[in-house]
């Protein structure tokens, strides 16, 4: 497809990488020539310098023949104008717009209709959603749902006292007494899609698929301490903090926000009547202590500075805060370092946002029903989990998975099959049929677009 991306900040760059890998024709528009030059030499894309909201630039970028425009500049208004202008040139073009000003969030649906937008993304709001999910159901570092919420891919850290430490994967069923599948293990910075002989060690980060209804039982057996969250401290008063505080207030969770900027604190206090907002130097541990960090149920580091977030989270962990969540903007560049630190859950608004957009793009192209229904990125982008519908053209239907072992590319795994409304965690004898949905997990380097791509 022909796609125009207007504005190359963090999200724009990450989208470029993902969409180029999917084989699309990408044209980038930005006002900064040096950023354009860097991306154009890194990826097979065309760059255009200028204001993306002008008719001339959009025409030059080929808006007349483009299928999709993704407007992700810094300014919401420019993004909107860009899409409106593009619609003038090409009424059939799909438009995805990033809107992040919180004043607009209440009118998102109206704006969508008025401006004819296909999708509005708000990375900060998505991040807040994700954090809220983790706080409401504590125990896992990340959770991704598939098959309309029936299967979950959860991430947890293996503690030394866990019954799983030192266990080989083939012994798992006897411990769980139910079908679970460990799809990926992150040890240090290296990811493995483990086989039966793989031995789990304390400190591993484990990605496991399990039916959603059995999660709480699994948690119990794992010895993961679940802890109902009643009081959360948010370090930093960013946009995410605002959205998150709003959501947590609704859940009846007590929120404390601490930020070093007095004006921002006053603004937040005005907007969030129930939250307690205080102004203090968040780089100073005593300021966090004053908020009662060591007795809080959760700490979320949400400033705009990745380094500061890491330091705050490390401190919170040292203070034995049960749940620590860290926001990171540049997750993939620092992936190796971050996974080496035990930072609790790491949330990347950029990654979330580009996942949403990539999912939309894939569904746009998906007229054949062959491309992925959902795409989730886990382990900081090292592993992708996709959900495929088995179409009439799928290979090896109704064959036991054990016979497919030699045919499937290495580093690709089918952990779950969704058949007739029930989920099976896949084993050697499982098979998929037309109309089923399967989950496919693979490491980053594989380029898997359609279900049949998983076969070598």
């Amino acid at each position, binding site marked *: 497809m022909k796609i125009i991306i207007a504005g190359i900040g963090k999200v724009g760059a990450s989208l470029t990488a993902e969409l180029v890998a999917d084989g699309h024709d990408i044209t980038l528009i930005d006002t900064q020539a040096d950023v354009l030059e860097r991306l154009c030499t890194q990826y097979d894309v065309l760059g255009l310098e200028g204001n993306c909201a002008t008719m001339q630039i959009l025409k030059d970028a080929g808006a007349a023949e483009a299928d999709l425009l993704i407007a992700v500049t810094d300014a919401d208004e420019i993004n909107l104008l860009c899409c409106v202008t593009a619609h003038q040139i090409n009424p059939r073009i799909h438009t995805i717009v990033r809107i992040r000003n919180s004043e607009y969030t209440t009118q998102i649906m109206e704006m969508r209709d008025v401006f004819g937008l296909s999708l509005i993304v708000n990375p900060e709001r998505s991040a807040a959603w994700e954090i809220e999910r983790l706080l409401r159901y504590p125990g896992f570092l990340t959770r991704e749902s598939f098959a309309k919420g029936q299967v979950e891919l959860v991430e947890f850290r293996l503690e030394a006292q866990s019954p799983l430490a030192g266990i080989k994967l083939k012994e798992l069923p006897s411990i769980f007494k139910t079908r679970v599948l460990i799809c990926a293990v992150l040890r240090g910075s290296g990811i493995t899609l483990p086989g039966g002989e793989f031995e789990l060690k304390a400190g591993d980060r484990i990605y496991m698929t399990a039916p959603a209804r059995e999660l709480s039982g699994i948690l119990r057996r794992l010895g993961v301490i679940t802890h109902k969250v009643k009081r959360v401290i948010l370090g930093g008063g960013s946009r995410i903090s605002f959205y998150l505080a709003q959501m947590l207030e609704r859940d009846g969770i007590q929120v404390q926000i601490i930020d070093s900027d007095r004006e921002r604190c006053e603004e937040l206090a005005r907007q969030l009547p129930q939250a307690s907002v205080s102004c203090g130097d968040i780089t100073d541990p005593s300021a966090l202590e004053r908020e009662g960090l060591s007795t809080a149920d959760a700490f979320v580091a949400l400033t705009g500075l990745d380094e500061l977030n890491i330091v705050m989270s490390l401190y919170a962990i040292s203070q034995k805060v049960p749940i620590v969540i860290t926001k990171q903007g540049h997750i993939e560049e620092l992936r190796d370092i971050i996974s080496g630190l035990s930072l609790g859950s790491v949330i990347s608004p950029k990654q979330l946002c580009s996942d949403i957009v990539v999912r939309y793009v894939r569904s746009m192209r998906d007229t054949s029903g062959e491309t992925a229904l959902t795409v989730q990125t886990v382990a900081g982008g090292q592993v992708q989990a996709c959900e495929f519908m088995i179409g009439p053209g799928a290979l090896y239907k109704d064959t036991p998975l054990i016979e497919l072992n030699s045919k499937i590319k290495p580093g690709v795994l089918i952990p779950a099959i969704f058949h007739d409304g029930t989920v099976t965690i896949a084993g050697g004898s499982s098979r998929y049929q037309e109309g089923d949905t399967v989950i496919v997990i693979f490491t980053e*380097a594989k380029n898997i677009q359609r279900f049949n791509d998983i076969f070598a």
Partner: protein
Amino acid sequence: MNFKSLGHFTALILFIEALLMLPALILSFVFGETRATAAYLETLLIILVLGGVLWLLSRGEKADDFYEKEGLACAGISWIVLGLTGALPFFLSGEIPAFIDAFFETVSGFTTTGASILSEVESLDKSLLYWRSFTHWIGGMGVLVFLLALVPRGSRGSGFTLHILRAESPGPDVGKLVPQIGRTARILYLIYIVLTAIDVILLAFDMPLFDAFCIAFGTAGTGGFAVTNAGLGGYSGYVQWVTTLFMFLFGVNFSCYYLLLKKRPLSVLKDEELRFYFLTFLVSGLIIALWIHPAGGNAEETLRASFFQVASIMSTTGFATADFNLWPTLAKGILVFLTILGASAGSTGGGMKCIRLQLLFKDLRSNLKRMIRPGRISLVRSNGKAVSEGVLSNLRTYLAAYVLIALVSFLLLTLDGKDLTTTITAMLACFNNVGPGLSEVGPTGNFGSFSILSKLVLIFDMLAGRLEIFPIIALLSGTTWRHK
């Protein structure tokens, strides 16, 4: 330096060369030239073994670090390898007994120079004549661009291929026509093939089919190897006019043709470089025609001779219909100027390129203005758009390197003790990929009498000229090879 990628790349280039040599092999069968057939088979064996070894050595995971320096080195290395292996059929068949001569001839072919060491060509085997002309066609658009058109799109980090396109395509600011580089390369080759085919058909009306193909290859690549000793002088006026037209057309930036296909003729007509190129062609042709017109001579013949030579030199093809060595000094002077000026950026032609001269002039003007009135903001514009300082500084570097290489090679050539006109024009004709110079290396002369050192210098000049200097200089620089 990412040696694995470099090796992998060179292997691919070798395989492509083997593929491109097959028609010549088949022709040698058809014409029953047994010596040539044997030479081609031996060459193919050598190429395949060499390519296979490189392929095996560079097997496995390629590191992702493929940046400017790898792009430049790939371009430089693969062109040298092309020259060395492409020379083998001439050498192994014994038609050109000295390897250095065969190497010179082949590099001259691939770089679309058209400078020859042969004093006469008609005794050469036909399949070798074909290969000699076909190297022009391959080198015209570039074998790396051909590779880009063939190779499927890589995944992450695939933008690196832009470095290769930049290293091989002429012009100060090389870009893509469409977002995907593979499609850009395919579009360029499609335009190239269609134009060549039209040329072949038009020529075939009035000359043997074999000649039509060879002359069309020489025209399309703006090379200049002919298949008869008389050059193009022996063909009809019709053939000469057709060739004039196509030499001019192949000197035009190919993105103009793309814009025409996209039905945007206005932006083509407004293109500053195209206007400059056309005007220079017209004015030079008319002036030369006035100067060489003999009293009572045929006006059509004069115009044909003059415009043919102007198109030939300006597009850096180098065909000749007349011995312009005998023309008045002004006419020769204009031809030398056109030798340096060359064709348009993004064409198959060589030389400095019209756009560079335009930009250099504009840059000079804006700098002078700033000198006279400090604080004045004066931008260099091209087609109404401001040219970035990066492109301009690159341009100045290019000019400095151009002058430096020209001076050093000139001095090295003087060791041969030939007269100054021969020495200077030999260097200019090779460095700008034109082919014929003046005096001893004029349209009736050849480069055979130069010493081995001089031939090596000229080979270096031809490669530097075709690849726009930087890829070749990069090979000589220590920083290219350091680290890993």
